[in-house]
């Protein structure tokens, strides 16, 4: 490495790193994968002329905005778990979303306290089974602990936020003691170590490694649309109508909030309103098989594929609140060991 190379690299880097200065822009911090978000963002920029600067942060979004403090460039944050968005609101890095349009579209139970966060889309976490080997069409989350599934159950890490939220809901229904017993029973039923991603469980059903598994609904939709080997995974599985014994289906959300020190607050509101509009909600619903929050969006692909879902009555706020306790129970039950 010569000095000259180093200097050239420095010059090149400084050109590349110089932030683009645009009059109309909005800065987005997201834990949502860019490829899922881009169609909506592109449509927004096209329709409004407002440029979206984005950074995809897998974890630590809240910590980063917190640390950046009053000078943070963040305007909007997008998060895919109710626990995470609530944690951000609790940490005081959000501000109320003030918009008549938002109030009209999003029901109160799908908003955070003081409108500090807003649900954009919903996704259910349900049970799938092998189409060939399991003959039933409905199941309860509680039934998964039945010893008849011993050596047949597959799931990703119990510490993944999607699972933590599900167990947190279970905790809300049944209390800590029963939840711990439930987790131990689930663990005893596993065909393999909890791990991998949500789609992997569908593959493991195809391979015969397991008969029954837990998955987020939009993955089913995405696999149904696939043109590669994932099509085969989709064809091997059957989604079951999944509910709590005394309730509905566990639903988690993707949500948005406005950063407390948002420098482009007006544009931030515009972006959130746009994401709730029919056009964006259709992109979400048809492109990514999520359940739209906007009731005017009819014929959503997810509903066509999986049927309507009756969400569990347990308030989202409770699920967010129990998250920590649920995560500790997962450790205690040795779920991932």
């Amino acid at each position, binding site marked *: *490495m010569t000095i000259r*190379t*180093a200097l050239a*690299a*420095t010059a*090149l*880097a400084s050109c*590349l*790193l110089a*932030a*683009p200065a645009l009059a109309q822009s909005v*800065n987005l911090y997201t834990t949502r*994968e*860019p*490829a899922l978000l881009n169609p909506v963002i592109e449509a927004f920029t096209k329709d409004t002329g407002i440029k979206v*600067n*984005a*950074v*995809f*942060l*897998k*974890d*630590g979004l809240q*910590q*980063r905005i917190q*640390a*950046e403090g*009053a*000078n*943070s*460039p963040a305007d909007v944050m997008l998060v895919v778990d109710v626990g995470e968005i609530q*944690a951000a609101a609790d940490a005081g890095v959000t501000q109320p979303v003030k918009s008549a349009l938002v109030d009209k579209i999003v029901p109160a139970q799908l908003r955070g306290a003081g409108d500090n966060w807003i649900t954009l889309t919903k996704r259910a976490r349900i049970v799938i089974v092998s189409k060939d080997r399991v003959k039933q069409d409905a199941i309860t989350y509680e039934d998964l602990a039945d010893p008849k599934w011993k050596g047949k159950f597959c799931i990703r*890490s119990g*510490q993944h*936020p999607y699972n933590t939220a599900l167990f947190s809901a279970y905790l809300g229904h049944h209390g800590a003691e029963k939840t711990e017993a439930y987790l131990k029973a689930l663990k005893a039923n596993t065909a*393999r*170590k*909890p*791990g*991998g*991603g949500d*789609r*992997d469980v569908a*593959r493991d059903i*195809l*391979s*015969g*490694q397991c008969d029954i598994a837990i998955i987020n609904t939009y*993955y089913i939709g*995405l696999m149904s649309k696939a043109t*590669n*080997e994932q099509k*085969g995974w989709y064809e091997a599985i059957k989604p079951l109508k999944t509910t709590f014994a005394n309730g509905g289906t566990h639903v988690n959300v993707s949500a948005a909030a406005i950063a407390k020190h948002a420098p482009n607050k007006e544009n931030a509101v515009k972006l959130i309103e746009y994401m709730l509009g029919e056009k964006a909600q259709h992109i979400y619903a048809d492109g990514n098989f999520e359940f739209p929050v906007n009731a005017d969006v009819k014929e959503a692909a997810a509903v066509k594929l999986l049927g309507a879902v009756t969400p569990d009555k347990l308030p989202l706020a409770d699920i967010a609140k129990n*998250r*920590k306790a649920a*995560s*500790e129970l997962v*450790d205690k039950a040795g779920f*991932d*060991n």
Partner: protein
Amino acid sequence: MSLSASAAHQARPPARWRPSTRLAYLTAAAACLVALPVLALAFTALSREALTVWPHLAANVLPVALWNTALLLAGVALFCGAVGTGAAWLVTQYEFPGRRSLEWLLVMPLALPTYITAYVYVEILGFQGPFQSALRALTGWRSLRDYWFPDPRNLPGAVFILGIVLYPYVYLSVRALFSMQSAALIESARTLGTRRWPLFWRIGLPMARPALAAGLTLALLETLNDIGASEYLGVRSLTISVYTTWINRGSLAGATQIACVMLLVVVGLMAAEARTRGARRFALPVKRPRPVGRIRLSGARGWIASLACFLPALFGAVLPLYYLLGELWRRDLVAQADPTLWRALANTVAISALAAALIVVIGIGIAAALRLGRERALPLLARIASLGYALPGTVLALGLLVPLAAFDNVVADASRALFGASPGLLLLGSGAALVIAYLVRFLTIAVNGVESGYARISPRIDDAARSLGADRRELLRRLHWPLMRPAIAAAALLVFVDCMKELPATLLLRPLNFDTLATVVYGHAARGVFEDGALAALLIVAIGIYPALRLARAGEQTSVSREN
């Protein structure tokens, strides 16, 4: 400039200590920078909230995490030690078919980030992968209920995958040692009739110990810090526990406590390495070293040696690359590539090159300070400056986030007060935070690389030069620099490759609209379609291959020049 420099040079009395004092300051500054996140973390780990988390961690998390980590480390150490040392011995001692190509092919796995190899193996060994498909086609079996097939998604799988990616660290350092230091000893032993196996066990291996320890330390630290592969393969290591404690329970304090336990493990590893190294010193004789004459292995033995060297390269590089190229073609990814990918490519190269240049310059300074300086605190400061490599990327990024953001805010507020306008976040908003994170994390590699270059220069050469009237600056410029250029180049390349592959700190600290190839791959993997990121993954590998080749060549060239 040269005129004034030489004038100043002549004016200065010869025996002054100034250069080394300045270097000592540099070392101290680097140590402070590295200590910054560690202190920030330690502060959090001891907070009041932390006390309430500890009992749960101690009872439910740490025992399993420590046990898994110990097994993982032991497994990777055995794997890398055996494969790396064995391959290095074969290519330096024997002549067999394909040896020259294998010598560099064996370095190749280093170009692949562990998480990519993990994703690839889950696919290759998976139900629809080539092996299982072929097996079913041959036997008529229909599903995994009819047969058993190895599944990489467990601890042994993780040992294999981390081992196959990381063994080149051991291979490189042991090979350098075998090819440089062993000629006289090994040839004497051969003359005295020592047979092949005893030669390896009684001469080669004991001699390789310091190099083995150095290579293993790097491999084990990488293992300890690995998140992508371990998480995907379902191994609950300490790093994963840090991660889940932090994210799921929103408990930064708990996470930092586990990180502190990890630091203890690392300190243990480093102490063990220092002990192995400290006991013995291998400096080259002043006379120009001579390579060992390789013994030709004929017939079946030659082919067995070829196969033994080919298998690690096959599993570590050829097979994953073949798979990625296949996906590229099957999914027609080149046609779908968009400008964002090319921008990510440019970003990756630019920021890695910039960081590598800076890191190596500072690394040279620290190593030189260690060699020349007499300040008592130097070894300790240098140790502190090496700590960053021991921190998992996520934890390091967290530790840096708070102090860097605080600095940015002070600058922004001051500038607003003085000039009425704010530049925004200076470090976090510009990518400078990334360079700092890479510096903290990878400084060890540069320092170790330069130090190992120094270790090959006998102190007697220094003494001779000094008795001939050379001052320290001249010693550095006219002796050390030319002798160490290959070692420095190798260190620069290693750092560059590591920066390029770095994921967790890059994810957390990069500015808006700034993606690297690693974050692009991760973005695809995170939504469960890793294959869509095959092109970005291949680009990482392609850029990584050139440095890896250069690393392999670096060894070769020295051996060529020594033959003259």
